[in-house]
């Protein structure tokens, strides 16, 4: 993250298109390279080479994104870069989210190296993950509803396959199928919404839609239904109530690294595209008179965080608890959308972006710890984790950092980002949401602390012996913990970038 300290140039140097989309290209090309390798040697068992190639691709993409971000590309006075007739927009927000995707993908790939030992079709696994990451990076940069839809599908389709990756595991296959069915339904709703918006405005480009809508429209009802259906499509991707039903099943059934990837990166991708579409195309100024979508997001935020946290509180299995807590966190982030139009757009959206960044690390880390537990085959319930603190202290310290940070205790960046969301909610007068945020955070402390209790307080029944300390998983878990922790003091650095990127949308 050191790259962020470089000064942002006032005017970005002129660069070619392919340089600006280098992160996307790197991700896509790495996927294709793996495809070639797999075609030549389908039975390769050299998992180190496969994971190494994939990790190198995501790392390169991460470095490229950081360089672009530090170089001020698409930021500052030059404004966003519009490529291919405005189909792609490279700006601070796109790059900020690409940092999240590539970081999460790197962590997950490093962890998968151990998790997938002795499994077949590893090349396909990494390839699918890279393709999904490519789709997410494209979502962050999508400049028209057409690109939004295509990139969203590009991110979704590999995800279905990834969830069902363990073909011989009934839970994994069932979860994949359910995820796919709900995804198909949501995509249908989403596409229908796009068609309605297109019917009203005659445009697909986000800025063009905004321009069209600023003159007002006769078809308020049609536009309204269209806008909410588009919102539904994003709600599916972000696992917001009532489009969340797939999430607990998919996260639980999927291999844990895939759960980490989906719950962190995929959710962030859903949010970045929602931010862009709603802030630019349906900007509050343009449609506030006719379609008050902030009310819809207000309701979604309130219901999502409450349902997610309440359901998480009653779970017996850690992974499922994390799945529901992931729903709850989507609710917190939705506050950023609900509070738009309150006069502090850049701040509230920046707070949500910041939370997604921190969440990318702490939640990925938590799921990867679960992956570690699955690797050790210690079991899935809270009780099965009893006494792990004695046997694997380093990983358990990392897990404690994740849990406390998720709960909003100042041990990691989660405290500050949640605090910024709270300030945003209060500052824009959304006191009910602020109160719900506090109540739900208090409730979340209950179920997160159950993990800590199991790890450190309870004694093991002695039946479980840990075999081995897998290097890749450990590296990913500890790395995520270190970044989570560093984001506590470093949060102001990131929050400046996030706020600037968010404010640029409304400039």
């Amino acid at each position, binding site marked *: 993250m050191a790259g962020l300290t470089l000064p942002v140039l006032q005017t970005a140097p002129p660069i070619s298109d392919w340089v600006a989309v280098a992160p996307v290209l790197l991700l896509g090309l790495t996927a294709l390279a793996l495809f070639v390798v797999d075609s030549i040697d389908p039975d390769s068992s050299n998992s180190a080479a496969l994971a190494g190639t994939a990790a190198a691709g995501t790392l390169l993409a991460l470095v490229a994104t950081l360089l672009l971000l530090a170089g001020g590309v698409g930021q500052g006075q030059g404004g966003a870069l519009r490529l291919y007739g405005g189909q792609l927009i490279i700006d601070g927000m796109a790059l900020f989210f690409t940092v999240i995707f590539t970081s999460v993908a790197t962590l997950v790939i490093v962890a998968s190296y151990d998790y997938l030992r002795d499994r077949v079709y590893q090349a396909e696994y990494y390839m699918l993950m890279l393709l999904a990451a490519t789709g997410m990076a494209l979502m962050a940069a999508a400049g028209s509803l057409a690109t939004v839809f295509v990139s969203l599908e590009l991110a979704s389709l590999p995800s279905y396959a990834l969830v069902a990756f363990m073909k011989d595991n009934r839970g994994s296959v069932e979860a994949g199928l359910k995820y796919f069915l709900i995804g198909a339904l949501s995509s249908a709703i989403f596409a229908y919404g796009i068609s309605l918006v297109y019917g009203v405005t005659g445009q697909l480009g986000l800025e063009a839609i905004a321009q069209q809508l600023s003159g007002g429209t006769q078809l308020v009802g049609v536009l309204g*239904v269209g806008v909410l259906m588009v919102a539904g499509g994003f709600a599916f991707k972000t696992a917001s109530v009532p489009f969340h039903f797939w999430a607990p099943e998919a996260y639980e059934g999927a291999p844990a690294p895939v759960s980490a990837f989906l719950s962190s990166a995929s959710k962030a991708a859903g949010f970045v595209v929602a931010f862009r579409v709603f802030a630019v195309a349906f900007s509050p100024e343009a449609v506030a008179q006719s*379609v008050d979508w902030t009310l819809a997001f207000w309701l979604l935020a309130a219901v999502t965080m409450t349902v997610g946290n309440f*359901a998480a509180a009653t779970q017996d299995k850690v992974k499922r608890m994390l799945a529901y807590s992931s729903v709850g966190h989507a609710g917190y982030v939705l506050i950023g959308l609900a509070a738009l139009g309150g006069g502090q757009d850049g701040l509230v959206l920046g707070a949500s972006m910041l939370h997604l960044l921190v969440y990318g690390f702490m939640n990925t880390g938590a799921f990867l710890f679960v992956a570690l537990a699955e690797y050790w085959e210690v079991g899935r319930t809270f009780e099965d984790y009893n006494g792990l603190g004695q046997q694997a202290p380093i990983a358990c310290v990392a897990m404690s950092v994740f849990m406390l940070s998720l709960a909003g205790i100042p041990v990691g960046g989660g405290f500050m980002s949640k605090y910024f969301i709270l300030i945003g909610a209060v500052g824009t007068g959304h006191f009910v949401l602020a109160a719900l945020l506090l109540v739900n955070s208090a409730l979340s402390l209950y179920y997160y602390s159950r993990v800590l209790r199991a790890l450190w307080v309870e004694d093991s029944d002695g039946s479980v012996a840990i075999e081995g300390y897998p290097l890749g998983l450990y590296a990913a878990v500890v790395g995520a913990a270190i970044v989570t922790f560093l984001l506590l003091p470093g949060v102001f650095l990131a929050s400046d970038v996030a706020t600037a990127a968010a404010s640029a949308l409304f400039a």
Partner: protein
Amino acid sequence: MAETATSTVAFAFEVAPAIAILPLASFVIALFAGKYLPKRGALAGITATGGSLLLSLWVMLTVAGGAYYNEEIYTLVSTPDSFDLHFGLLLDPLSALMLVIVSLVAFLVHLFSLGYMNDEGEPGLPRYYAGLGLFTFSMLSFVLSDNLFMSFVFFELVGLCSWLLIGHWYREDAPPSAAKKAFLVTRFGDYFFLVGVVAIFATFGTATFAGAESFPTLAEEALAGSGGAGGELPTFGLSAQGWFTVLGLLVLGGVLGKSAQFPLHTWLPDAMEGPTPVSALIHAATMVAAGVYLVARMYGFYALSPTALAIVAFVGGFTALFAASMAVVKRDVKQVLAYSTISQYGYMMLGLGAGGYVAAVFHLMTHAFFKALLFLGAGAVIIAMHHRQDMWEMGGLKNKLPVTYYTFLAGSLALAGIVPFAGFWSKDEVLYEALVHGLNDPLLLAAYLMGLTAVFFTGFYTFRMVLLTFHGEPRTHTARNPHSLGWSVKTPLVVLGILATVIGLANMTPIAEATGLEIEFLHTWLEHGLEGVNSEHYGEVLETVAGYSAAELSPLLAAVFSLSLALAGAGLAYRLYSGDRPEHHTDRLGAAKRLLTDNYYQDEYQVWIAQTLGTGVARASDRFDQGVVDGVVNGVSSVSLFSGDRVRRVQTGIVSNYATLLTLGLVALLVGVGLAGGWFL
């Protein structure tokens, strides 16, 4: 030359924080290294307080040169629009004088402790000296404070130190209990003080004592209606003067607790359970002085409210008489001194309330010296008597302990107010101020009459104490063979004895009136100072805002009157107790003696209030906590878990159910937002 002078002045003020920091260093040394040091931390304390004394004298000289200092030195919290919390120094004639008093007494008490604690082989000496160091640090910082917030911080720290030191012998039964009582009773007053500090911040946005932006100045501007920043202050529905009275009385709550004024005086006699040097330091010259000093420090604020002043004066006058009457029957030498302390602080409050700012500060100064002397003298007697304190077991110590006797006698003459000893001049001036202002104000006059009556009692109990202790035939074996005393005990007595004799000459108002000589040095001293915080300004404010006016009366007349009362009291004591074998004359008081010995049942009724009211409130709070708060918490958690369980059941695992719910949810959202937005009209 001029530049050199300026830089010397600047340097004197630069090093002023060291006055407080030196004793803090001795606290740290005594605490962590005390047990390895030869005198267990005593030498560090003596060096530190000696250094503080020298620096204080330097600051005093600098202030005498007409230079003052009022600066922020460390900001804790700063908010641009509302208020800031900071530490700062205010060095003017009042604080410089007080610094010298506190550091001198602290120095002498440290010295005396060598004889009282070290030579007697007491345990826990490092803890003792650490406590003394921390106490001196807190008190000096309190004196240096430039704002009420800082004062409050150190006020509380002083309270903590008194708890530590009173409870020094914590293995016995009485000291821990006395320490707790001192802590709780003063804390009760401090609640009001704390509320007052917050209210002053809320009203003025500042709590600094001096300067154009200080709260007394703002309050004065508000009352004068002269616009300025003080023009529109929030007064919470009261008139400006009414609200300032409320603020003054809230702060006064802390003052009553610390300065042991009725009805919060009950802790002080019990606090005599602490080591005697501690009594001298805390309960005579410094900590108890904190309350009175605070009123003097913010006198410009009190002067704006005649109601607050009248209450101060009345409480003071009443306490003076009330405490003096109880001192008459005590058997324990330290108890007599304890009640006399309460009584004397009553005089200071009377002086302040009656508009005699200089008189009160004067009495604060003389009392600090003669009461420290009396306590140390009593300490010397207690050493000699092998830690017996009952005066009826003493007698005849005059010849065995000549140094102690003569210094103690000087202190007693000062306390009783016999010319020309220190107490005469100061007490007399307090009474004079009360009288001249009281002739126009019946409440003040009543306070004055109580103060005047107390003079008689003071003369009586003081000489009863002297006669029973030092005169007559020794009444016990110990009194016949007292323990000898060392130099560390005698030196402080001699220094203080001289001061108690001559310090009153600093401000001989009656002589000045009679002869027309310019010898009222303290008046001159306090007239200078920063704008708005000097006695000249206070006099104007008292006249214009509080409506005080002084009647024309010769101070000589009043002086003769109070002196004759004091002599009458002393004479009565001499008549009753001067024989070789004095009798228990107070027995003749009958039921009244019971009442006085039992302190008017003050403790009993306060315990009763604490038990009925306090326990009742505590029980109600407990019930509220158990029932309502815990009930809500438990309720929330069971509701959460129950509804969480419901939510869980929605997740059936059947994908067509999910699709249905998803669609229904979307439809509900569409209908809800659509109806709110009026799409379907």
